[in-house]
């Protein structure tokens, strides 16, 4: 973070996302799915946001791209290349400077040939050439452009989605679980394209539930727990438990196979029954009454953490 003097590509401060939902009876309540989330991506960096499946990580990607469902409220500061973005500016940037690589074939129109989709319906000669170049770069057979999404294999779909993202000249790629159902090796292979992209001085925000994968390819890891990021750490911090900062990250570390596979009891709190103060409090062995108050973000050893006991 502050220790790096690289330029920020993306900086998200205090992002909150809430839904309106029915309570029992006729009352509607606001469910805060994401609260006070901070994360940043520097030039040349691949940052992984790691969190359990179904914990609302995708909403992070959707807020950056302005594609949240209409019944939801969002606020926060999104700073892209030094510029504070609002909804209108996001609409201009998305698909050009900020691109999304979604998770599955359902993000492709089932009734349109993939070549045309990658070209966003355009047929000019140079756009067609660029699409063909990208397809061959990603080892897609020549006739792939004429296929429909249902005719693609899982691996081909992923590479088509990647080509799609590269059609513009993106500055930032947001990859939302781009490797579902792939083995670590295959996933790592897929990740090499993102790595290459970051190494050219651009940024990648990888959203995943797979901490192993994140450790293999990312530069930094943001740990997502119950709707917020509890820690941002360098990948090298994960070499030893002592360099990690937050108790939840440490518990994750211990649960890794190479570190003894220690299971970790309990579940993430449901959004409706969020504990006061630190969301991890009820499961934390370092819990003290002060944890029920507001937890500010600290910077320790070039990483951020939301824990009053962190050192």
């Amino acid at each position, binding site marked *: 973070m502050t220790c790096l003097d690289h330029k920020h590509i993306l900086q998200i*401060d*205090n992002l*909150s996302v809430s*839904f*309106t*939902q*029915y309570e029992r*009876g*006729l009352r*509607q309540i606001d469910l805060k799915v994401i609260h*006070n989330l901070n994360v940043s991506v520097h030039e040349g960096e691949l940052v992984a946001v790691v969190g359990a499946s179904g914990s609302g990580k995708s909403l992070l990607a959707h*807020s950056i791209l*302005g594609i*949240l469902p*209409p*019944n*939801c*409220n*969002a*606020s*926060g*500061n*999104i700073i892209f290349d030094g510029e*504070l973005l*609002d*909804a209108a500016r*996001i609409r201009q940037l998305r698909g050009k400077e900020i691109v999304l690589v979604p998770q599955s074939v359902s993000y492709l129109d089932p009734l349109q040939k993939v070549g045309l989709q990658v070209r966003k319906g355009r047929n000019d000669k140079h756009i067609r050439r660029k699409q063909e170049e990208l397809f061959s770069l990603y080892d897609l057979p020549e006739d792939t452009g004429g296929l429909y999404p249902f005719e693609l294999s899982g691996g081909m779909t992923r590479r088509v989605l990647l080509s799609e993202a590269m059609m513009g000249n993106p500055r930032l790629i947001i990859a939302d679980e781009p490797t579902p159902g792939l083995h670590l090796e295959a996933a790592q292979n897929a990740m090499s394209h993102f790595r290459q992209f970051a190494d050219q001085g651009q940024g990648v925000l990888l959203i995943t539930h797979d901490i192993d994968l994140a450790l293999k390819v990312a530069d930094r890891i943001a740990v997502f727990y119950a709707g917020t990021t509890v820690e941002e750490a360098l990948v090298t911090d994960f070499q030893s438990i002592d360099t990690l900062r937050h108790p939840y990250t440490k518990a994750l570390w211990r649960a890794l196979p190479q570190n003894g596979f220690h299971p970790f009891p309990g579940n993430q709190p449901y959004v409706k029954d969020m504990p006061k103060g630190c969301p991890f409090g009820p499961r934390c062995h370092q819990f003290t009454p002060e944890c029920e108050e*507001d*937890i*500010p*973000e600290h910077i320790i050893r070039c990483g951020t953490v939301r824990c009053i006991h962190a050192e």
Partner: protein
Amino acid sequence: MDDTLVTSPLQISKRKRLNQRSKTIIYLVLGLTFLLLIAVAGTLLSHAAITTNFMQKNLLPSLQYPFGTDWLGRDMLARTLRGLSISIVIGLFASFISAMIAAILGTAAATLGKTVDEVITWLVDLVMGIPHLLLLILISFALGKGTFGVIVAVAISHWPALTRVIRAEILQLKETNYVKIAGKMGRGKLEIAVKHMVPHVFPQFLVGLILLFPHAILHEAALTFLGFGLPPEQPGIGIILSESMRYLSLGMWWLAVFPGLALLITVLLFDLAGGSLRKLIDPYSAQD
């Protein structure tokens, strides 16, 4: 804490003044009250509806006769209420029977194996293949026209669409993980059905039942309008409108306008109630 920092709004959603649940309750209450009022009024007015008064023939709507009077001096308001209550009773009965048939056939198709499923699916396609009104004419003809024919025709012809819904719902439930797991854990079929299936299928069934009612009542009216069924001394809405046709060219518009409007309102209320109840049980539109 960080909340004190200035943050910019990225997206703001508007809340509706009346949420879906309140709306549903309003429609249902209105619908039921309306039904009850008409049923009561219709019974009370059974005599007034056929009382002729030659001093008061062909009157335009007025304070004394809000819906006017007909060529025999009968009070059109009384006739309309009476007619509507007859139509409602037939509609209720018919939609209930049809919904029961749908529940039985839909469940059978989804649970009794491939052959039964194919036969029932085929039956649904078959019945849907004959234009509905023509099917009603055929059935009522088979039963020798008359009141009985109308009731039976409307009651036994409205099940196909709901059968499809219930079949699909159960098939989908059977594929869900919790039902599969319950089966693997050795729970009895009956227990699974009662604990896991019924709570999901029943709301669909209820909505189906409510939405059948407008169809049934419209078809009953159409069939009697065409001349199949109800005798003139039982003035269903269809009969009233059919009789009014002869007097339209004389400019007696009120004979047709009010009874039809009353039928329209009844049908609309139940359509709205059923529609919003369906939205309510559909989790994807819960926020609408």
